[in-house]
């Protein structure tokens, strides 16, 4: 009976190979197109390999724990002549089985004759296809962009007519020529600096979680405080205390390590003309709220007059921004490129709050806290825990 | 010959005191042969000496300082630092600068002679020297054959000094006598005892005259023993000590001196004066050469073509 190969299927765009994790059948089994012949793993998802038609398994050459490229033959299926004609496409021959090398020649007793073309970078994860197409920037394009002061992110709005959808020099020139018909205002140095920071920040997967917090305790505390901390400062202190308890959320992922901050220094956003400055208060977790007021005011003043010394806006563990001052209720702020966290405070407003005890609504002043975080360092759960802790600290302001 | 011997002694000591970079090649023992050829050449002739022809070069007219300048690396030497030691010459004056590949100069001289023939020059001679080892090359063979075919007025002086570097003649050629090759090339063959100056002058003079008279190419094979190493870095310890007892090991210079004194052509006083004068000449030449500027890589014209507009452009 004729044979057709059992082939490693195309498992997804840009997946080039997968690892066999389980073989569910054996030679001699009768199978059909619904049968799961074997299981392969790509990026934490396990998928099964099927055959195109009914037949009997004639051979299974794939081995558990080995990776094979898409299109490789993993075994052979005995089928009818008709089916062979319809489905017998050629496949890349499977790699040779393991070869024993006498000990002393290599550290391992055996050498895997893994596939010649594909070497997985991380075991079990898919290997991306060769970089070309839309993301490829040729030396020529790079040179032209350099001449014009453009960055890769500036290309995102340009449709590419080149190979694989990439942007060619012609595309770029046409686009720029088109732009000249628009009104243009020059971007200030501050604007460009912020643009650069945001571009770098955005290279990470950022996510945001939100939580409503009751501001009444904070407002009451404030009323009787002398000197008076601003609402932002309460949030700064609460965040610092929470991070002082567990700093992981403020960590940074570098390679395979999470780098924890040495001290809980918190920055806060101050609007200056055409940009945002972020002065930093040091060791906030170790200073009580009332003792922070002076430093906070000083920094705000310096920021507004653009006289911040450089050491006051470097190296903070996290940043707080109060966009509530603009009347905004909610936002997804973007953490600074060197940080993993940005905590935002929205505008306070009167809202009805269900009180279980009296079984009725009570008016409270509430605001939404939003915490943007680098999803490589923590997941939603940890972000939520941090935010919840901050909120709980804010409703007991006398402890701050 | 004395000048040649003294200059070479000087070169040797300069080398041993580290003043010379690269190899030093001496013609000690074959001065009689070399000088005889040089003396019989005239302006208009073409001469391509080889590595042991200090005597011949001086006889042909090379300024004494040329050799020292080339060895000591003076920028003012004929090769301007671009080549060294015995790889020197003044081609426009008919004095060719050898390349290291032995045998190659024979066809160059042949070509020069063909050019002179085109020009209608008559009574000219081309001369070159070669050793027992150099005669083994294909280059030599092709050139000899070609010169024979063209019947050029070429004189090839082959000095069999018994060794080619460390290789004795038993490992170098299979014929009984190197002069036997002449017949194969269409050359007239001559042999001479290289230790006897008067015989060298006579035989080589005769060969040159024959060539000049249009009697075709001439091969003269002279026999001596090489009285130095292949180069000064070689101690020649491989030389068969028995050879040193033989006639061929006699120093042609000493024999010539003895003969001149015996026949009353020179007195010892004359000889002493001559030697002292020559040594002074050498001293002057050496000290002059040593004070001259050396090549400067920064100001050097790094261009190998005379057609400057065709120089290839390389960036870095």
């Amino acid at each position, binding site marked *: 009976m004729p044979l057709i190969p059992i082939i490693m299927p195309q498992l997804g765009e840009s997946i080039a190979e997968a690892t066999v994790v389980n073989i569910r059948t054996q030679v001699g089994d009768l199978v059909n197109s619904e049968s799961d012949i074997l299981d392969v793993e790509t990026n934490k998802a396990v998928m099964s390999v099927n055959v195109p038609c009914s037949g009997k398994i004639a051979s299974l050459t794939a081995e558990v724990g080995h990776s094979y490229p898409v299109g490789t033959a993993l075994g052979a299926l005995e089928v009818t002549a008709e089916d062979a004609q319809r489905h017998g496409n050629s496949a890349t021959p499977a790699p040779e089985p393991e070869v024993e090398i006498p000990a002393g020649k290599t550290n391992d007793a055996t050498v895997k004759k893994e596939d010649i073309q594909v070497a997985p970078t991380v075991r079990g994860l898919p290997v991306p296809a060769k970089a070309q197409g839309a993301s490829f920037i*040729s030396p*020529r394009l790079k040179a032209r962009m350099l001449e014009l002061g453009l960055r890769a992110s500036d290309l995102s709005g340009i449709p590419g007519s080149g190979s694989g959808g990439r942007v060619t020099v012609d595309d770029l020139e046409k686009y720029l020529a088109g732009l000249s018909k628009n009104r243009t205002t020059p971007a200030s140095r501050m604007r460009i600096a912020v643009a650069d920071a945001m571009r770098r920040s955005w290279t990470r997967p950022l996510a945001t979680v939100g939580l409503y917090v009751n501001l009444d305790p904070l407002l009451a505390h404030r009323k009787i405080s002398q000197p008076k901390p601003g609402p932002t400062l309460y949030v700064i202190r609460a965040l610092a205390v929470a991070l002082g308890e567990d700093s992981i959320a403020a960590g940074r992922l570098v390679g395979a390590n999470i780098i924890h901050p040495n001290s809980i220094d918190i920055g806060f956003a101050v609007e200056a003309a055409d940009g945002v400055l972020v002065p930093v208060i040091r060791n906030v977790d170790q200073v009580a709220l009332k003792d922070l007021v002076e430093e906070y005011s000083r920094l705000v003043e310096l920021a507004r007059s653009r006289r911040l010394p450089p050491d006051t806006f470097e190296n903070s563990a996290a940043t707080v921004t109060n966009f509530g001052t603009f009347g905004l209720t909610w936002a997804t702020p973007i953490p600074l490129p060197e940080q993993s966290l940005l905590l935002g405070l929205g505008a306070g407003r009167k809202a009805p709050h269900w009180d279980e005890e009296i079984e009725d609504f009570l008016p409270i002043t509430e605001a939404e806290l939003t915490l943007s975080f680098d999803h490589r360092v923590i997941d939603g759960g940890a972000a939520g825990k941090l935010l919840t802790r901050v909120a709980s600290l804010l409703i007991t302001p006398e402890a701050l | 010959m004395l000048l040649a011997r003294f200059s070479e002694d000087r070169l040797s000591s300069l080398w041993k005191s580290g003043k010379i970079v690269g190899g030093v090649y001496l013609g000690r023992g074959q001065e009689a042969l070399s000088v005889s050829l040089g003396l019989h050449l005239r302006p208009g002739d073409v001469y391509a000496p080889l590595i042991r022809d200090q005597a011949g070069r001086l006889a042909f007219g090379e300024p004494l300082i040329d050799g020292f300048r080339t060895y000591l690396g003076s920028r003012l030497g004929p090769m301007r630092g671009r080549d060294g030691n015995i790889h020197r010459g003044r081609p426009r004056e008919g004095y060719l600068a050898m*390349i290291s590949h032995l045998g*190659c100069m024979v066809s160059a001289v042949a070509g020069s002679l063909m050019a002179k023939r085109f020009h209608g020059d008559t009574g000219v001679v081309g001369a070159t020297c070669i050793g027992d080892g150099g005669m083994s090359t294909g280059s030599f063979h092709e050139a000899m054959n070609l010169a024979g075919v063209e019947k050029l007025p070429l004189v090839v002086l082959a000095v069999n000094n018994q060794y080619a570097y460390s290789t004795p003649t038993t490992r170098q050629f299979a014929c009984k006598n190197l002069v036997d090759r002449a017949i194969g090339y269409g050359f007239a063959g001559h042999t001479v005892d290289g230790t006897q100056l008067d015989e060298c002058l006579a035989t080589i003079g005769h060969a040159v005259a024959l060539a000049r008279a249009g009697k075709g190419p001439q091969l003269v094979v002279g026999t001596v023993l090489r009285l130095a190493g292949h180069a000064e870095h070689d101690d020649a310890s491989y030389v068969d000590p028995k050879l040193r007892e033989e006639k061929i090991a006699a120093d042609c210079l000493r024999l010539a001196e003895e003969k001149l004194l015996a026949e009353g052509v020179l007195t010892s006083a004359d000889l002493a004066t001559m030697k002292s004068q020559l040594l002074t000449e050498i001293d002057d030449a050496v000290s002059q050469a040593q004070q001259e500027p050396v090549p400067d890589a920064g100001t050097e014209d790094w261009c190998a073509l005379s057609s400057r*507009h065709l120089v*290839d452009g390389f960036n870095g």
Partner: protein
Amino acid sequence: MSITYLEAIREAQARALADDPRVFIYGQDVGEFGGAFKATKNLAREFPGRVLDAPISEDAIVGTAIGAAIEGMRPIVEMQFADFSSVGFNQIVNHAATLFWRTEVSCPITVRLPSGGNLGSGPFHSQCMEALYAHYPGLIVMTPATVEDAYSMLLEAVAIDDPVIFCEHKYLYYHLKAEALPTDALPAGKARIARPGRDATIVTYSAMLHECLAAAEELALDSYQIEVVDLRTVKPIDTDTILASVARTGRLLAVGEAFPWGGVTAEIIARVATEGYELLDAAPQRLNARDTPIPYHPNLWAAHRPTSPAIVNALRNLLRL
């Protein structure tokens, strides 16, 4: 009236002999017989005593030419096949090429090498040796691809005071014809845009020019405009013209008939990669013969060196990159 590439070479030699009494031709069978390819047909008779038969001694032939050049002559040496010049290689690269550098006396010899493959010529009658000679300082290496260039560049070679290795292509001898001899020409050292284009640049020389032009024609059917640059001389290489072309097209394919290691195509790519990196839209490519001796059988020979279908393929790949 039409004139072949070979006839152009003969005409150039006749003209050189007529114009300059210092010129003579030396090589095997060049005299009465007129040369193995008839490149010197009738010249011995027309110029008695100036077209001389040499023995089979390439070393001595070149050495003789050098010696004659030192004494003021302008010899043209005909090697019967480029492949045999390896016997005279030493005299060419160590004597002729070093003479001016070492002695300030220039060496105006011209060495004609019948180069390149022909049907059935096999490993020792087909070689392209320009890369070997170009490698040595002190030589000029010419690779004319057209009838006109064969004529004017040979005349220029004789007039140049330095040793010129003139690689004339045997296949073009009888296959290439022109209407008339040229009255003017680009100087040696300048490349020529044989076909203007926009989408990719081919840099090539000698017989490959015609294969490349055919390939460009085919791609024109798919609306690709391929620019073809004929180097004409491979030492020196006209880097400026090449870079200007790549600046226009952004893509480079270097095509040569010689063996793949090192060579003219490698040299072109090295220069463009170092001096024109930012002009490139894609990695520069090259196409050469296979890394084996040149086979004898026509089936094998056809697959050994680049032909226009192979060039078309290479271009399609290049355009996709």
